[in-house]
């Protein structure tokens, strides 16, 4: 195999150690220098025997999506795994518990449902777990041992990784896990004849112990903390709660303030209060909570107060599907709230970018005294990726206050009309810098006024800030075919990874395809998109919403017919879906 690219799924019921086995596997693979991406699924209910799937893609050359189908399925629970066989590839491998027949009702062993072409390996998971640890709870570790033996993974390196993972636990716990792993490894090596072609080669070529293995929520929180976040106010809501939990632990350690508020209105109110007071502040929520914040988004723009809102999108409208993926809050992010209200919208395309996006969000909010919306989604919030520890943000991103000089202070106009739209701002406590800020239209001193000239000039000033912001946004990411292409895929948010991958596959198939995505949705790199569009015969916009919110937005820049791929499956966009669409389009 030239490029190893393997998708492993572990399927069990809640409480069987399914997710932790997946985590142990991905951590080890990352330490061994592989790139990993995990996207687990588990029931919304906390208790019970619901189906859990730990899904991990392991690759040597970067991973952009977790992959839709699995090469290897490790079945810890037969009933749940029978359903999961539908995602196993044609030549996939099944590792299952070959318990004696009396354990099963008729037709309830997963191996009975296997398609021809798939390779089953029966391992006595329960028996070996009892032998090694005295109970059946370590079946997940036995399975990992069997997996390692079958695919040529270094036994000792993996054992060490497990020991590090359980380092702080009691010796008995460590021993039970390690022994079960070794038992599974030894039994498989001795009793199983390898029949499939998958194999990990060149293990330990490049050991990376310092890799972070984090999800998008964690990366966002890390970025915000690195950018000097001082206050976080939040209200629990899936899938953004993890950000709040991190802040509740980390902010007090750094002298910051964490507050769990009574509702999302209060969250954004606290953020805006702290922003007015001169400190960096942020809140995180999902669609329903973001709706409640709408009125305050207008205040941040009107009163020119920095504020950052993270909206991790989920299935909507209303309460919708709390644990399902969708990209359908773009409209409310761009256009929510009353009046003409320019807003900055940043949509990271992968876990690594969440960190950078959080830094930029706090920086731009402070420098331009405005609202920044960071659009995550269920997939980004929950998918786990390995990444190098990020470098600390440059100093320019850490203090972006533009304050008035002594001369300006002598006749201070808080909302002075300026060329770039930024009026130097005093922070409360500054002598002689007192001002009045309001959500009413106002003159340069903040006094409420409603005349046509003031409203026109102030509206223009608020919109002018976006010209400056547009000069600070990262260049769009363009990949794939470099010349005149048959198809240009324009993607946003977490669907961009799948789009890039689909374009790669299309290129391999000889289709001239290219891909365009931008971290910033507003302001948007309009001219770059126009240039890109010029060299593409067709444009395809894939996104996880029904109405084509992003396609509608770019339609006003491109003014040309576009192909659309709109899915509301509740699952992340898959490169297979986009590739299929690319192949379906007629290129006349």
């Amino acid at each position: 195999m030239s490029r190893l690219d393997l998708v492993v799924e572990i399927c069990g019921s809640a409480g069987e150690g399914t997710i932790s086995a997946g985590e142990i596997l991905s951590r080890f693979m990352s330490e061994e220098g592989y790139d990993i991406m995990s996207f687990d699924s588990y029931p919304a209910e906390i208790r019970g025997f619901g189906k859990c799937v730990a899904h991990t893609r392991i690759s040597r050359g970067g991973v952009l999506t977790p992959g839709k189908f699995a090469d290897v399925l490790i079945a810890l629970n037969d009933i749940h795994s029978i359903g999961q066989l539908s995602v196993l590839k044609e030549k996939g491998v099944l590792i299952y518990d070959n318990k004696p027949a009396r354990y099963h009702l008729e037709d309830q062993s997963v191996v009975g449902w296997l398609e021809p072409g798939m390779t089953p390996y029966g391992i006595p998971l329960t028996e070996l777990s009892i032998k090694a640890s005295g109970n059946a709870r370590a079946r997940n570790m036995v399975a990992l041992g069997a997996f390692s033996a079958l695919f040529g993974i270094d036994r000792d390196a993996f054992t060490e990784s497990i020991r590090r993972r359980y380092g702080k636990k009691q010796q008995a716990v460590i021993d039970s896990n390690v022994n079960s792993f070794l038992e599974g490894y030894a039994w498989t090596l001795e009793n199983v004849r390898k029949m499939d072609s998958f194999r990990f080669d060149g293990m330990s070529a490049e050991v990376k112990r310092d890799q972070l293995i984090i999800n998008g929520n964690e990366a966002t929180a890390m970025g915000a903390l690195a950018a000097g976040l001082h206050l976080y106010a939040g209200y629990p809501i899936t899938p953004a709660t993890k950000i709040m939990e991190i802040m509740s632990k980390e902010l007090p350690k750094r002298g910051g303030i964490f507050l769990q508020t009574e509702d999302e209105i209060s969250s954004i109110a606290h953020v805006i209060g702290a922003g007015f007071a001169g400190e960096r502040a942020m809140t995180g929520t999902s669609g329903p909570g973001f709706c409640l914040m709408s009125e305050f988004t207008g205040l941040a723009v009107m009163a020119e107060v920095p504020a950052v809102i993270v909206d991790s999108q989920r299935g909507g409208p209303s309460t919708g599907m709390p644990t399902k993926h969708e990209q359908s809050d773009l409209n409310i992010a761009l256009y929510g709230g009353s009046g003409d209200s320019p807003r900055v919208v940043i949509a990271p395309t992968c876990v690594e970018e969440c960190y950078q996006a959080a830094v930029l969000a706090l920086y731009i909010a402070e420098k331009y005294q405005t609202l920044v919306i960071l659009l995550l989604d269920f997939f980004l919030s929950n998918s786990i990726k390995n990444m190098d520890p990020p470098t600390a943000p440059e100093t320019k991103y850490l203090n972006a206050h533009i304050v008035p000089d002594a001369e300006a202070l002598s006749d201070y106009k808080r909302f002075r009309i300026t060329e770039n739209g930024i009026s130097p701002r005093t922070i409360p406590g500054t002598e002689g810098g007192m001002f009045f800020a309001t959500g009413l239209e106002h003159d340069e001193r903040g006094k409420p006024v409603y005349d046509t000239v003031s409203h026109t000039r102030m509206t223009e000033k608020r919109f002018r800030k976006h010209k400056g912001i547009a000069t600070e946004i990262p260049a769009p990411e363009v990949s794939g075919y470099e010349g005149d292409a048959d198809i240009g895929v324009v993607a946003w948010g977490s669907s961009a990874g799948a789009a890039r991958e689909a374009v790669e596959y299309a290129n391999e198939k000889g289709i001239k395809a290219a891909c365009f995505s931008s971290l910033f949705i507003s302001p948007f790199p309009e001219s770059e998109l126009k240039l890109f569009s010029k060299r593409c015969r067709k444009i395809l916009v894939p996104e996880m919403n029904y109405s084509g919110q992003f396609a509608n937005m770019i339609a006003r820049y491109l003014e040309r017919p576009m192909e659309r791929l709109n899915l509301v499956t509740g699952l992340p966009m898959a490169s297979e879906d986009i590739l299929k669409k690319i192949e379906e389009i007629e290129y006349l």
Partner: protein
Amino acid sequence: MTQPFHLDEQIASVKDKGFLSFRTGELPTWCPGCGYFGITDAIYKACLELGLKNEEICAVSGIGCAGRFPVFMNVYGFHTLHGRSVPVASGVKLAREDLTVFAVAGDGDALGIGGGHLPHVARRNIDITLFLFDNSIYGLTKGQSSATTLYGQKTSSHPSGNPDTPVNPVKLALAYGASFVARGFAGDPEGLKHIVKAAIVHKGFSFVHITSPCVTFDKSNFTWNNLKENHSPIDTGLHDPGNMESAMRMAEHERFKIGIIFKDEKRLSYHDNLRQMALKPK
């Protein structure tokens, strides 16, 4: 024939009164005879007597007649959204403990649309002072019933009489666990000044209920005459502000008693609580 009004001349004529340093150059937009002039006067004087500096004060208001207060006070003023002065003020204080923070709200603002925030700022005991300007009417939208409008009172939204029972703001504040609860009257700026001073000095959430007439939209119930007749100071010999039961009785039966109704000086403010918790072993 009316004399032309020159603000500068007016200010110059009373220059010896230092509280005018808290005055901005803006002419108040309240109706002539409004009770809010008296409240504003009391707050200016309290700040002056406490030696507070303009730049160390942040006044956060909501929407309504009371919401305009920060336009007329020379401090860091923030006129926010309807009902949201309390959580925004809380955000200012949490971010900047060094500032003296006021939340200013009317009865519609604090008890109607923003009523949901009160229990939480009270139970957190965030060290801000809420000035509740209560004229029992929506004045800025021309006289609709509010949460404190009397039962049966005719208003522009209830021409045949208000069918709703009013809330009791002081009783609510006590029930929510506010650590400082007082009532003042717009017609007694001197007495109100002392209450405001005590409220600002109190470390924790202070709730100051201030009754006022609306001279434009309420000509029969909470008028200057009626309010003046009914208001009387709390007899400090009979009431101990440290006693919750006595405070509750007063809240229930004495709707027009002015003075400090309840004060818990032992309770830690939010910031002090955080500091103490940080010291505890995990």
